[in-house]
């Protein structure tokens, strides 16, 4: 079967919408995820589903894809009411989905993975040639015989897209597809999506990146707290107005001053080589980096390029082979554990909030003690000083506007953004000389993200050194003074933010380290 645009895919004459949701309602224990959501998707449009974390986007698309069932409401497919009980049924109707988290077997080849995913019974060679054909046709360069383990995240996504397209879907749901891509890869993905749209396919595009939506989508449905708050044409809106619809309030811009005086070296990483402690981990290959007092250094990079390994080596959860490979305030700490490094003035905000940065089942007071025990002197002669612990927790909650019913609340009861404010507050109130912060606003709503950025900038203005590791380039360009890129376990030189562009950083994210920085190098790749 060749993917020719069949007659049913050509622009409809008297259109019943491709998919119509009427008054979809879904409750979970303690959460009303979708309240009477209605949504209409036309043939041949790219429709954005926009909303903050927890607004109900995922629940809604899971209902469309048959993973979950609505409590009430109607689904019309080509004008006919349907019941979608399973993903298999959704695929039979012509609905495909590309998930944010891939489900691929690392040790199998691309074509083997695809064969498993779609239940292919014929010879693999036949499938391989079809994969090649699709990848040529839609601009998704892919070698069907390579092992998935060797592929970059962007390539893995192409495998997923290819697997989805092989089933000739008429509606493709894409869940946050660009969160793992370099800017160049995003450009390539967008041209693929436009090609698919022009064939008459419908794309439901889930994202919270407003500029992308304005560039790509011709219609948008905005969800807030499970309800549709707006249906609009994003091309007619500004990012500001979209954000306002999404969060329901004015968004405060981050105030930023020029670095007044950059001080002495606080963190020095010097030729750090580190073999991974886990299979499929990344080897750190001669990473060198300096973070000075009074500046924020950002490390960009696509996930899985050694960020976790580098962060563990910095926090002390993973020791370095040499003491001198990591230095804090000139003191070699490569062989010291996390506790000793904290005592030397380092604070650390990990990527996983629940389960690393905080213990889900413990109260906020206990979680304040978790990392604050040393520098806040909350423990005396082996005994916990509960009065101090409670005061410290209250201070964090108060100063960082953590929304909770008090320090006794379990960490798991907080929303992602509030928990992150708590963790960042806990680390900042320890007055660290050096703060290492991973993905500070990943999955955090826009209001909390602005507060977190402001807090990081405030810490820098007090003369601390701040290292931020993030996949979000917008974030790094907002707060960082200098920026470096990690790729395949290697770290690029740092560049002052005002002397570099998103495109240049994107090139580095794709691994083009050797290219000397020359502006004309930018257009060589996919632009």
């Amino acid at each position, binding site marked *: 079967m060749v993917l020719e645009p069949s007659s049913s895919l050509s622009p409809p004459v008297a259109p019943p919408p491709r998919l119509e949701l009427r008054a979809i309602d879904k409750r979970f224990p303690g959460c009303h995820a979708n309240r009477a959501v209605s949504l209409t998707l036309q043939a041949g449009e790219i429709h954005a589903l926009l909303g903050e974390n927890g607004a109900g986007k995922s629940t809604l698309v899971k209902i469309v894809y048959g993973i979950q069932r609505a409590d009430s409401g109607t689904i019309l497919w080509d004008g006919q009411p349907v019941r979608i009980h399973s993903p298999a049924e959704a695929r039979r109707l012509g609905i495909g989905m590309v998930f944010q988290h891939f489900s691929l077997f690392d040790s199998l080849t691309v074509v083997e993975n695809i064969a498993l995913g779609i239940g292919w019974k014929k010879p693999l060679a036949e499938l391989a040639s079809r994969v090649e054909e699709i990848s040529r046709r839609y601009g998704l360069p892919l070698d069907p015989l390579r092992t998935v383990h060797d592929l970059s995240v962007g390539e893995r996504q192409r495998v997923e897209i290819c697997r989805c397209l092989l089933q000739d879907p008429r509606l493709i749901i894409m869940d946050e597809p660009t969160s793992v891509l370099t800017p160049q890869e995003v450009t390539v993905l967008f041209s693929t999506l436009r090609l698919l749209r022009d064939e008459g396919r419908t794309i439901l595009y889930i994202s919270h990146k407003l500029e992308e939506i304005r560039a790509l989508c011709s219609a948008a449905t905005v969800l807030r707290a499970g309800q549709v708050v707006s249906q609009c044409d994003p091309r007619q809106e500004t990012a500001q107005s979209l954000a306002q619809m999404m969060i329901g309030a004015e968004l405060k811009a981050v105030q930023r001053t020029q670095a007044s005086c950059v001080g002495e070296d606080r963190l020095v990483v010097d030729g750090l080589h580190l073999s991974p402690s886990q299979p499929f981990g990344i080897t750190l290959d001669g990473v060198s980096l300096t973070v000075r007092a009074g500046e924020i250094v950002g490390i960009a990079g696509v996930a899985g390029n050694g960020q976790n390994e580098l962060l563990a080596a910095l926090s002390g*959860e993973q020791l370095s082979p040499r003491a001198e490979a990591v230095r804090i305030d000139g003191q070699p700490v490569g062989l010291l554990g996390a*506790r*000793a490094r904290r005592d030397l003035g380092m604070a650390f905000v990990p990527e996983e909030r629940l389960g690393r940065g905080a*213990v889900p*089942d413990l109260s906020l007071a206990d979680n304040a003690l978790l990392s604050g025990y040393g520098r806040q002197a909350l423990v005396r002669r082996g005994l*916990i000083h509960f009065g101090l612990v409670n005061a410290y927790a209250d201070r964090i909650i108060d100063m960082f506007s953590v929304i909770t019913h008090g320090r006794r609340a379990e960490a798991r009861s907080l929303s992602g953004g509030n928990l992150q404010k708590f963790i960042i507050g806990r680390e900042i109130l320890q007055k660290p000389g050096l703060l290492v912060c991973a993905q500070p606003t990943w999955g955090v709503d826009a209001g909390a993200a602005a507060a977190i950025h402001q807090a990081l900038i405030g810490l820098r203005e007090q003369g601390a050194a701040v290292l931020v590791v993030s996949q979000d380039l917008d974030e790094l360009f907002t707060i960082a003074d200098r920026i470096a890129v990690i790729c395949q376990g290697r770290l690029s030189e740092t560049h002052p933010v005002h002397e570099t562009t998103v495109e240049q950083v994107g090139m580095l994210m794709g691994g083009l380290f050797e290219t000397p920085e020359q502006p004309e190098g930018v257009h060589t790749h996919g632009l």
Partner: protein
Amino acid sequence: MAFKLEARGASSRRWVYGAPVLAVLLTLVFGGILFALLGFEPLAALYTFFISPLNSAYGVAELLVKAAPLALCAVGLALGFRGNVWNIGAEGQLTMGAVTGGGVALALGDSGAGWWVLPLVMMAGMAGGMLWGMIPAWLKTRFHASEILVSLMLTYVADLFLSMMVHGPWRDPDGYGFPQSPMFGDAATLPILWAGTRLHLGVLLALLAVAVGWFVIARTFIGFQIKVMGLTPVAGGYAGFSHKRIIWMSFLLSGALAGLAGVCEVAGPIGQLQPVISPGYGFTAIIVAFLGRLHPVGILLASLLMALSYLGGEAVQISMRLPLAVTGVFQGMLLFFLLACDVLIRYRLRWLSSVREAG
């Protein structure tokens, strides 16, 4: 009657405490059925098992005597279990505590009569249990050997070691060849607190251990570290807590308490070393720890209940000629039902007739 389990949003505090109560009730119901199947009047048999042992002051004292080693072992085990350190070998540590403490008592004989003899015997017992706990701790931290298997297997080593000593060097020359040591001197024997019963000082030591256990868990930083390591080891690593330290602390503390339980048995009710000194207190303590929700006060109550199951087993053996294995059956049922009832902490039952199918 069809039902399904539905996840609760948060764990139910009511069922944390309700589950043990329900488990006890279910054990009574099924125990009654068991007695009925064996041809006994169920209520009368349950009365014999659970109530009649407590009809006399002596019976109450016996209950406390049996509860003491259970509570001592369980408090130590609970500390480790909270930190995901699985010491299954309290029985062996108890036995080694009896061996080392008893060894000191025998060595001093009647010669030592000072006040210091008894504390020395107790300390020797704790040191013995601790030493036996250090072996799995070292193998775990050094070679990642499973502490479950190592501590369990060391129980049999300890039993055989005790057996060797009482059959050999420590056998009482005036004991008509029985494999047991001479009786300990008075100075090395725990004083009786209640005349006419066997209630000894060890019971107070057990109460003290419960209090100390509560203090360690609730007030100390090491208790907090153990809790964090048990709930979320990754967060413990992030905070800079040492996993090895937690393993060592857990084994040293639980080993010492189990050793204390052992030496209290031989310096208390038994008064000498014998080939078998514990009817499985160290293993039963695992049930006690979980039945008591790993909390010292809960453990206190649970140890009384499990002590009662020992007395009840003896009572039905005497008056109904049932085998002593009934004790094990009741203990097993209790643990089984407890584990089953614990599901209700995180899940609730929904009767399917009331669930509306939605599309």
